[in-house]
């Protein structure tokens, strides 16, 4: 792996007699989304504040591109941290300034840009974060979600190389939480910054994170990919992840990946050799264009509606589903053979075209018709049995996907 952008070596932080971080070692790599997970009050925000220099460690060293921050000159330190932004958990917007002035503040105070250029950049960010109507309002006049977006716009207005997000989704409803996470992921891809995020939103953050850092008992007990976390065996998993991970995903109402796996294994235990099961994969194609044209809320509502429809259809007949990534769902129908599954699928497609599409359009607040976007729903099915690995059955279903529905401007008319 490349050299880390930020590295903690044996960092310890105490507040009086209370030790918050103890011999923390971690690595954050450039261009990635790294999420720090852990229980509330576990020191995640304190850790984040060390990265941007708001707090100094009592012991240990923080390295930036291999150079210890505490040994850097003021100029070197500014060069290292100058393009770093921080989004506070409580937003920390200036309540005596309008949203526009809040977002313009870092440009006005730290650059020599002309007024017109500042205005152009600020308006671009306001537009991207869907805050045009709130531009001249004060933070106290905004909803919690709008305040979060204003804070996000302020963090991004300087085109940062590193952005630190301290619980960016706290206090939001499930649709808005996922809209904010999707917004962060989209901007991260678009601008290529390194994102470090503190979050409780398990498993939603897994979809957008390249690496996970687990803070437990004052120290980092795990750092690696989401897949590596699945195989991680530590009390942290029982105490933290399982307490944070809901039985169902808040956004879709479907099972979490872990619950899906448990239910799959339980089904397989009761089955006899030769008995088959069916895996169906659903993909929403064109979510990015929905996001860019209609906004993150509309995209998340489309995902929400699709998840609900799948669960409503297959749940009562013993099927169970989960969301595998940002735009894919997987459904398992235990003890079903090919003809039975084919019939169920045909019935689903008929219902989906009749009601599902309308439901998605309705959930997205009728927004689908406001701009000319196209959302294609694909589905693929494969049979499996006890001897086959579920991953290969899922892959097979993925390869067999074909279009089962299309939502365009025309369908709205």
């Amino acid at each position, binding site marked *: 792996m490349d050299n880390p952008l930020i590295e903690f070596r044996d960092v310890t932080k105490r507040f009086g007699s209370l030790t918050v971080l103890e011999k923390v070692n971690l690595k954050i790599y450039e261009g990635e989304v790294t999420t720090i997970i852990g229980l509330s009050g576990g020191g995640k925000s304190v850790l984040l504040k060390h990265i941007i220099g708001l707090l100094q460690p009592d012991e240990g060293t923080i390295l930036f591109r291999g150079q210890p921050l505490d040994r850097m000159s003021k100029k070197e330190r500014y060069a290292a941290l100058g393009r770093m932004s921080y989004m506070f958990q409580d937003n920390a917007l200036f309540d005596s300034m309008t949203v526009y002035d809040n977002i313009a503040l870092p440009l006005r105070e730290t650059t020599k840009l002309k007024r017109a250029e500042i205005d152009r950049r600020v308006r671009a960010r306001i537009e991207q974060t869907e805050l045009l109507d709130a531009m001249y309002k004060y933070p106290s006049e905004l909803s919690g979600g709008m305040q979060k977006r204003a804070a996000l716009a302020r963090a991004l207005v*300087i085109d940062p190389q590193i952005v630190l997000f301290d619980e960016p989704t706290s206090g939001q409803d499930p649709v808005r939480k996922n809209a904010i996470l999707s917004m962060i992921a989209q901007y991260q891809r678009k601008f290529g910054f390194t994102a470090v995020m503190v979050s409780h939103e398990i498993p939603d953050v897994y979809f957008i994170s390249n690496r996970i850092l687990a803070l437990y008992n004052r120290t980092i007990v795990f750092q690696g990919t989401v897949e590596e976390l699945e195989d991680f065996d530590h009390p942290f998993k029982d105490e933290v992840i399982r307490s944070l991970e809901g039985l169902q995903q808040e956004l879709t109402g479907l099972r979490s990946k872990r619950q899906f796996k448990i239910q799959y294994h339980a089904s397989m235990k009761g089955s006899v050799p030769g008995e088959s099961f069916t895996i169906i994969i659903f993909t929403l194609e064109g979510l990015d264009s929905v996001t860019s044209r209609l906004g993150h809320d509309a995209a998340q509502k489309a995902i929400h509606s699709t998840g609900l429809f799948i669960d409503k259809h297959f749940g009562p007949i013993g099927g169970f589903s989960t969301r595998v990534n940002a735009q894919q769902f997987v459904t398992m129908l235990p003890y079903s053979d090919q003809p039975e599954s084919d019939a169920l699928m045909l019935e689903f497609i008929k219902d989906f075209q009749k009601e599902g599409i309308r439901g998605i359009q309705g959930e997205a607040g009728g927004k689908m018709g406001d701009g000319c976007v196209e959302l294609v729903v694909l589905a693929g099915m494969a049979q499996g049995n006890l001897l086959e690995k579920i991953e290969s059955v899922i892959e097979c279903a993925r390869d067999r996907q074909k279009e089962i529905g299309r939502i365009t401007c025309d369908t709205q008319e």
Partner: protein
Amino acid sequence: MKLSAKIQDSFESGEPRRPGRLLVLPFALLGSTALNWVNQTGAAAIFLLLAIMRIPRARQLEKVIQQVYYIGARSTMIIMLVGLFTGMVLGLQSYHALVKVGAEGALGTLVALSLIRELGPVLTAIMITARAGSAITAEIGIQRISEQIDALDTMHIDPLRYLVSPRIAAAIISFPILTTLFDLIGILGSYVSGVWIMGANAGTYFYRVQSSVEMKDVTDGFVKALVFAVIVATVCCYQGYFAHMRSESRGAKAVGLATTSAVVLSCVLILVSDYVVTSLLL
């Protein structure tokens, strides 16, 4: 913590009892209080120095003008009102006292010198502390506890330059101007009560005012106004800036206590420094 509570604590703590410990404890407390006071004074002095060094920076003029408006212009009415009634009561009392020794002609001299050398700078500073100083502490304190100052740090905007320096500069500009206004309105107020109400001679009054006031009296008044400006602005900004470090409370309560401390401390320091400056100038 009260002394009795500290003594009680020392009994209950697991430390071995040494003979004479109770005898030493009051001195130890006195010493730690004195050290704390020296620490705070030193920190405030460094705070002031750093803030003053940041006044002549880019993009400061607009902020200074804005603060002159908040600290200075918006205090004008209250300063005029207080100046008027101070002058009126001074005129009334002085006339009654002077008439007893047949020296009512000296009313103008007494009123003008009292106002320009003493009452003008002191009362103006106290009134600005009550009106603008408390607002400065509360505003900066709230910005501190709601992480707005940390947000400035993360945006690489120097909070001292952005929040404190303009207020200190604005106080230095506003205090002498408001003091002058107070003096003028006070002299007119004294004219109203002394001449119009009590019947003193108007020509004598203004002649005495003009002949007895020297340039040194005016500059001494200005020196005091400048000293008070620095004290009030520093104390109020410092209390708000470090509101989160108060040991006795947190959050909104800490801001409330910081505001109270700022007003009380400013008023005490105005009166103490008034004596010191007066004794140096005389």
